[in-house]
């Protein structure tokens, strides 16, 4: 079934005029880039407005109505800025760092199913790919931090690498629980396993009570993976000035920022796909009032996906503007002594549930 649904994107792969994979680039990659860009633009705007709301402020109000064009103005400003490479920096690493970072966070978009008819690449190891490719960010962060030749950047990079690599483990195990419930690593298939007439009741989160454990574990771990508070230790501005991107200005800084907000959306999308039904509508069919049928479909799918993604981004922001920051050792304690054991426990429990509970 999945293959027929993805026929659209499969066909694009075959659209290769003059031997160039134009179909894939123009019709599949570009919308994804736009999704990433919009998640940045409105992520940043939302972050400012939400934090302003939480802090009794107004936030940006000048550019456009309610300041909605503020981020665009910021991007224009960043574009015009001089592109500075510090004299004593390792130029190669300094330049490729943000690129690798962006590629790492953006590649995972390829396997995210945005609707029943739109997925960049329906891999049968999609989830594994998403988990794995995010680790590429580590390389970018390390390159940026080391290449800057700045002690604060180095601290940020080292902290970040330690943090991301550690938190990959509980995150991956928690996601495996979802994969186990679906019986596949294909993200489109995982989503399809959660569709049905009862809407939200088919979501993995509501299919089994055990799923809440990996859900929470993955959510906490994903905060650490994308360096959000209370785990924003790599860029802890009061300790490390700005962490690994201390020396970056202009467009390179914007790319790092884009990657950060991109990965925020990415982990939110992954958690929605694995635990909250991805592009499925949460509304149930009640008798002849077929709300679920009415709110499902390729177009609706994109809406649900993005809404769910933004919901988790909102929760991330909420946490960021409420909580103080953990210390490095406390962060590692949380990962290795709390999250990882509980992830294993939830893994076993899910397996038991899947075998013995119909």
């Amino acid at each position: 079934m999945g293959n027929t649904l993805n026929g659209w994107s499969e066909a694009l792969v075959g659209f290769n005029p003059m031997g160039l994979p134009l179909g894939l680039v123009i019709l599949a990659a570009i919308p994804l880039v736009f999704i990433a860009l919009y998640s940045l633009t409105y992520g940043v705007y939302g972050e400012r407005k939400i934090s302003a709301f939480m802090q009794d402020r107004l936030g940006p109000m000048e550019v456009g109505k309610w300041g909605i064009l503020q981020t665009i103005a910021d991007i224009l400003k960043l574009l015009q800025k001089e592109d500075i490479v510090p004299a004593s920096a390792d130029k190669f690493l300094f330049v490729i760092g943000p690129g690798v970072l962006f590629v790492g966070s953006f590649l995972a978009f390829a396997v995210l199913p945005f609707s029943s008819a739109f997925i960049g690449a329906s891999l049968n190891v999609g989830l594994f790919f998403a988990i794995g490719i995010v680790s590429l960010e580590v390389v970018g962060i390390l390159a940026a931090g080391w290449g800057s030749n700045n002690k604060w950047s180095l601290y940020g990079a080292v902290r970040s690498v330690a943090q991301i690599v550690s938190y990959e483990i509980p995150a991956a195990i928690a996601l495996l629980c979802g994969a186990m419930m679906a019986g596949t690593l294909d993200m489109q298939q995982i989503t399809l396993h959660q569709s049905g007439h009862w809407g939200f009741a088919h979501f993995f989160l509501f299919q089994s009570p055990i799923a809440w454990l990996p859900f929470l574990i993955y959510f906490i771990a994903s905060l650490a993976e994308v360096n959000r508070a209370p785990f924003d230790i790599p860029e802890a501005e009061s300790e490390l000035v700005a962490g690994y991107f201390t020396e970056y200005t202009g467009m390179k800084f914007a790319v790092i920022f884009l990657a950060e907000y991109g990965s925020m959306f990415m982990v939110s999308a992954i958690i929605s796909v694995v635990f909250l039904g991805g592009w499925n509508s949460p509304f149930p069919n009640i008798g002849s009032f077929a709300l679920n049928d009415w709110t499902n479909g390729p177009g609706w799918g994109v809406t649900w996906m993005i809404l769910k993604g933004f919901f988790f981004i909102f929760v991330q922001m909420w946490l960021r503007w409420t909580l103080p920051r953990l210390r490095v050792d406390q962060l590692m304690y949380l990962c290795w002594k709390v999250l990882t054991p509980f992830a294993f426990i939830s893994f076993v429990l899910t397996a038991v549930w899947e075998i013995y509970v119909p």
Partner: protein
Amino acid sequence: MQELEKAGVGSVRVTRKSDKVVVIEKDLVTEEMLLAMGPQHPSTHGVLKLECLTDGEVITQAEPYLGYLHRCFEKHCENVDYPAIVPYTDRMDYLAGMNSEMAYCIAVEKLMDVEIPRRVEFIRVIVAELNRIASHLVAIGTFGIDLGAFTPFLFCFRDREHILSLLEWASGARMLYNYIWIGGLAYDVPADFNKRVREFVDYFRPQTVELFRLLTENEIFVKRTKGIGIMPADVAINYGWSGPMLRGSGVKWDLRRNDPYSIYPELQFDVPVPDGKFSDVGDCLSRHLVRALEMEESLKIIEQCIDKMPSSEGFNSRSAIPKRIRPKAGEVYARAENPRGELGFYIQSDGKSTKPVRCHARSSCFVNLSAMKDLSKGQLLPDLVAIIGSIDIVLGEIDR
């Protein structure tokens, strides 16, 4: 044997298996890195520079360097008249200008033996306590920022804004007031000032509770501050600590109580000292707690002052100001309880000049910060930031 000597360094371990076999284990050889924290660093609260020797995240030594904001206060004092020094004191501790002015005026008044009208004393205490709350709000907010909690900072600044408006209404300036003059005040307070202050007190009481719940009781906040940077009471006294820092170490010492000045003996208020239940006595959390609880006491003081204040009938705020301020020959050391501790002024007069021969400010932050080197030894980098935040430094007062 050189290897054995190095064993103390930490990267080499020597274990004796038997009489003949000695196992030497080497870890990764780590090098200490010199990390210049500041003068431009977000958590040094201005232009403090800490030169840290770090072994990974651990600070093996942190040496503070001062003077980036040195504005020659004491040199200026030798060249201007006594009343003209008042604005300079504002610029020392710019977060608590009223308190600094009050300390300076008390010193000169002690040297001159002037009788201050009672209403002046009440107004002074009200504005000083308002300013103390404002200063503690900044201290608590920035401490939160140092630990990564941004929202409490803005909550604090929102409330501080009300205080600044009140003080602006009274004095005409928001931070650098020049309001308390030697022997009096620049102006009487506006007619409805007391009413508005009372409104503020009523508004602010619930806000302190909110702040308490948002920041002080936050699990992560407690984890970050409890047991960090512990200073025992006797060492704290030996280091000359004062104010919330000393009280955080469990010493019940408040100049408003122990060396009373102005009308403080007539007022009822507690001196909060941590009891060791919620925090370890002497750690960063204790110092934060003292500040948080002190705001409540200041509110009490303000309320009492409003009740007891003599009416403004026939009152001239400048009536007691001497025509010519030329104290008799002598020297004085007078101090007041500032939000950051004891702010003392040593003033020497030769009895002939209208300028002091010597005017030395004993800055509370300067003395509190001198313990930094000891406090920071062996701490993690994030803890160092917490310790600096808990000392609540104002570089304007340290460098003067």
